[in-house]
């Protein structure tokens, strides 16, 4: 059809690469998203404590990781973490190898990038918290920490869920940049396949479809979560 040749898809080696690529992409996305959400919550909690030096530190972190290209961050992590002396000797080959694999570097850099964006999202959620809710929590004897986890996070995360969906879908797509530092995820194997087969257009169309499907599943899941968490009488639940 349209002169497109997909006969290479019958080759088990390429099928295997695609499957491995998808699995690695999913792993990378799941790991870095989870850590990013955690960083976002802790960062927003830190900001809510209103401690001068902590505020400055978190603001600096957010500015650096939000205002630089994620690709640069990933290359930076990959090359600096290995040259900073984080090396180990491979017991089998006796060669000196970086302690952190390319996958680990990609995971760290994506987590920090997503985390910086998530801090802003959670912060905006916490800032909409009515003072009355905080006062009720205090008058019932909740400590700062307990109030944060048991009252503020459940309410704020509902408020910031739409922007969190944006951040997570973006983070998912950004995992493709890990191919540059040789993480064998979907984009990396796509390159391998078209270098082998010279079927660039066909491979790109297929990869595009795979990304559309994967990210659609993610955003569908998030919209279901949003519907599930909607509070009767508030927002969409009215």
């Amino acid at each position, binding site marked *: 059809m349209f002169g497109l040749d997909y006969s290479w898809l019958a080759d088990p080696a390429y099928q295997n690469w695609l499957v491995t690529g998808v699995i690695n992409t999913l792993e990378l996305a799941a790991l870095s998203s989870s850590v990013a959400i955690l960083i976002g919550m802790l960062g927003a909690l830190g900001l809510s404590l209103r401690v001068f030096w902590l505020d400055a530190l978190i603001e600096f972190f957010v500015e650096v990781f939000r205002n630089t290209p994620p690709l640069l961050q990933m290359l930076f992590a990959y090359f600096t973490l290995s040259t900073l002396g984080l090396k180990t000797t491979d017991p089998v080959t006796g060669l000196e190898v970086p302690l952190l694999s390319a996958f680990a570097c990609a995971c760290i850099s994506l987590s920090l990038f997503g985390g910086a964006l998530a801090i802003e999202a959670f912060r905006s959620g916490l800032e909409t918290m*009515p003072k009355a809710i905080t006062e*009720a929590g205090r008058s*019932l*004897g*909740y400590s700062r920490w307990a109030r944060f986890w048991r009252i503020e996070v459940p309410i704020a995360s509902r408020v910031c869920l739409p922007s969190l969906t944006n951040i997570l879908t973006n983070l998912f797509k950004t995992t493709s940049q890990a191919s540059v530092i040789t993480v064998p995820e979907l984009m990396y194997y796509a390159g391998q396949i078209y270098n082998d087969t010279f079927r660039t257009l066909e491979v790109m169309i297929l990869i595009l479809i795979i990304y559309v499907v994967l990210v659609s599943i993610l955003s569908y899941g998030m919209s279901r979560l949003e519907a599930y968490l909607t509070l009767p009488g508030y927002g969409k639940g009215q």
Partner: protein
Amino acid sequence: MKRSEALIEIDNIHKSFGDFEVLKGISLSVNEGEAVCIIGPSGSGKSTVLRCINGLLPIDEGFIRVGNHRVHELRSEKEMRPLRHQVSMVFQQYNLFPHKTALENIMMAPIQVLGHERAEVEDRARKLLEKVRLGNKADSYPGMLSGGQQQRVAIARALAMQPEVILFDEVTAALDPETVKEVLLTIRELVDDGLTCILVTHEMKFAREVADRVCFTDRGLIVENAPPADLFDNPQDPRTREFLGQVL
């Protein structure tokens, strides 16, 4: 420790917000089982007094004792915890947690803060819902309840802490006239049960019927403090007379 036998003792407290001095030396003592109403114009410091009693606001100067707790000496939330157990508060805007059902709102703090056993707390919470006549609303979220119903859940939530004192902060001010009645009825029953209550209110008729004593505050001071019959029928201070002339 105690200067008098009163359950709550407030002596000459001062509190400023920036340059504005809200409380200019308030003194008040409340005995166990007493219901005291605080009335007065807006901005006279009524709600601020309540917030100082349970330590939500730190005072600048003065002495506050509730039971065995010297409130003005408590510094951290952790030190406040035994006080929170003894003193509950009900707010003008109900302040229920919107992500929890009525029953869960009542059960949360006794389990999570006081560490009471879940089964026992649930039993207590259901009885309290019955008491405020909302036994059929246990699984409703605050957003599904009317203002009056939410406020009665908030009262049940305050009672679930098994306090010795409840502070009511203009609890009917945000309600429709027809739901005011059901909330006042609930509070009246608590007063009749002998619970110590301090109520900031604009409901003069209610204050007159339910209170053992009424305090009139104006510009950061308690101007007059008397049994309701005396204060309403024979006010001594010209400012009290002027205020009552406007609202009655």
